[in-house]
């Protein structure tokens, strides 16, 4: 096995708070790696609402999630955090000397003095359709992603949802599937105009069917599906279905962090508000996932927590080095790094 990377801190989550944590650690001369299961930085801000303006970032009357992410990346760049994107944290092992070795699902191993959980609402998972026993069918009759279109040859495919993914996959699968039906709660679909035209044409020629209503039950010897019951304005209808593909976007779930033995309240991790340390020494939690009396789920509060955390991590990662509190305007170490980054030295 390859030797693990070595660093002072591993930040789990590349959302705004995780990115700012890299900056604050850098200010104290600490190195870090950032791991995120998404393939892009920005977390929820970039994934769920890149275009939505955020109005409560100090000094910005409004800024989009994407702009905020870009600026935080630029701010952290002088400290060159190592990014591991598209990787989910899988395992944490404490070493005798107090360090941790973290392993991701792609096999990346990192040895670190401190772990900083900045995982926001948790891991991103596909939203389940509002059908009671859907879990029984997942992986067989119900699938949340199309891996190979060939897998749908000869199948009665029912797609749930009315957004881009639902419409695009419905059109694509008409080429291979025995039948394709798209079920949406309301007549209005939200997809590219060109895709909507193609969908209407396909419906007119009978290549696909559109049903307006809400899926209420999956029928079949689970995990196989034989049919899907849909509540429409004309009453319940049963649609022939061997594959049901729900496309309702992503949501947050606690993910594997819930099994790390940290003291939690619901899906949130309890921390000491002075250090942001969790119930386990060396593991910290900041941002929306952290919980302490009076905690506010604001990006602003996450930034503050990142700065508090950095001080506490310094005591662990560089115990022999004294921290002299410095303002960013006058820190010689920071100015040197910033100048190097700008190519001025």
């Amino acid at each position, binding site marked *: 096995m390859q030797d693990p990377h070595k660093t002072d801190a591993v930040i789990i989550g590349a959302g705004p708070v995780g990115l700012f944590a890299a900056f604050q650690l850098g200010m104290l001369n600490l190195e870090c790696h950032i791991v995120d299961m998404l393939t892009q930085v920005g977390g929820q801000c970039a994934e769920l609402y890149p275009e939505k303006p955020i109005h409560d970032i100090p000094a910005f009357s409004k800024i989009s999630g994407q702009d905020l992410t870009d600026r935080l990346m630029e701010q952290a760049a002088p400290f060159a955090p190592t990014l591991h994107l598209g990787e989910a944290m899988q395992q944490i092992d404490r070493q005798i000397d107090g360090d941790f070795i973290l392993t991701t699902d792609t096999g990346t191993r990192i040895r670190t003095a401190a772990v900083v959980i900045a995982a926001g609402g948790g891991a991103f998972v596909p*939203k389940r359709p509002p*059908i009671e026993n859907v879990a029984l069918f997942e992986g067989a009759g119900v699938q949340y992603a199309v891996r190979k279109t060939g897998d749908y040859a000869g199948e009665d495919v029912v797609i749930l*949802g009315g957004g881009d993914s639902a419409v695009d996959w419905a059109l694509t699968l008409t080429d291979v599937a025995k039948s394709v039906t798209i079920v*949406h709660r309301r007549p209005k679909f*939200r997809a590219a105009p060109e895709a909507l035209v193609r969908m209407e044409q396909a419906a007119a020629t009978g290549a696909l069917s559109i049903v307006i209503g809400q899926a209420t039950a999956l029928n079949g010897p689970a995990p196989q599906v034989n049919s899907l019951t849909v509540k429409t304005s004309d009453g319940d209808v049963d649609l022939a279905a061997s594959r049901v593909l729900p496309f309702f*976007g992503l949501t947050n779930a606690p993910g594997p962090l819930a099994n790390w033995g940290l003291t939690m309240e619901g899906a949130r991790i309890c921390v000491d508000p002075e250090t942001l340390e969790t119930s386990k020494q060396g593991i910290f939690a900041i941002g929306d996932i952290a919980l302490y009396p009076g905690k506010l*789920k604001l990006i602003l509060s996450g930034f503050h927590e990142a700065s508090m955390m950095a001080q506490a991590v310094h005591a662990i990662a560089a115990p022999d080095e004294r921290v002299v509190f410095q303002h960013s305007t006058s820190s010689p170490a920071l100015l040197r790094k910033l100048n190097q980054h700008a190519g001025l030295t």
Partner: protein
Amino acid sequence: MKITFKMQDHDTKTVDALPGQSLMEVAIANDVSDVIAECGGGAICGTCHVKICEKWHDLVGPAEDFEEDVLDSIANVTATSRLSCQVLLGTDFDGLEVTVPKA
């Protein structure tokens, strides 16, 4: 002003509210069970679903597109369903009644 939440178990709760508050804030402040608001008012999670009682529906108004997208992914949605985090109380909302579906 007064707002009435009708629960699934036929229990009702009538509480005080102020214009400008969101219906979700009022529900959370008064421990209305089944209004969870996991995302804190971002119209993302769909855990603050309420149904506006018929006679109030026109005044409260319909959901916007981004809100409809979230409603698509939750159960038992009707024509008067709203995410309570997106309903801001107007000065003329005194007496508003909403039903809270089981979370």
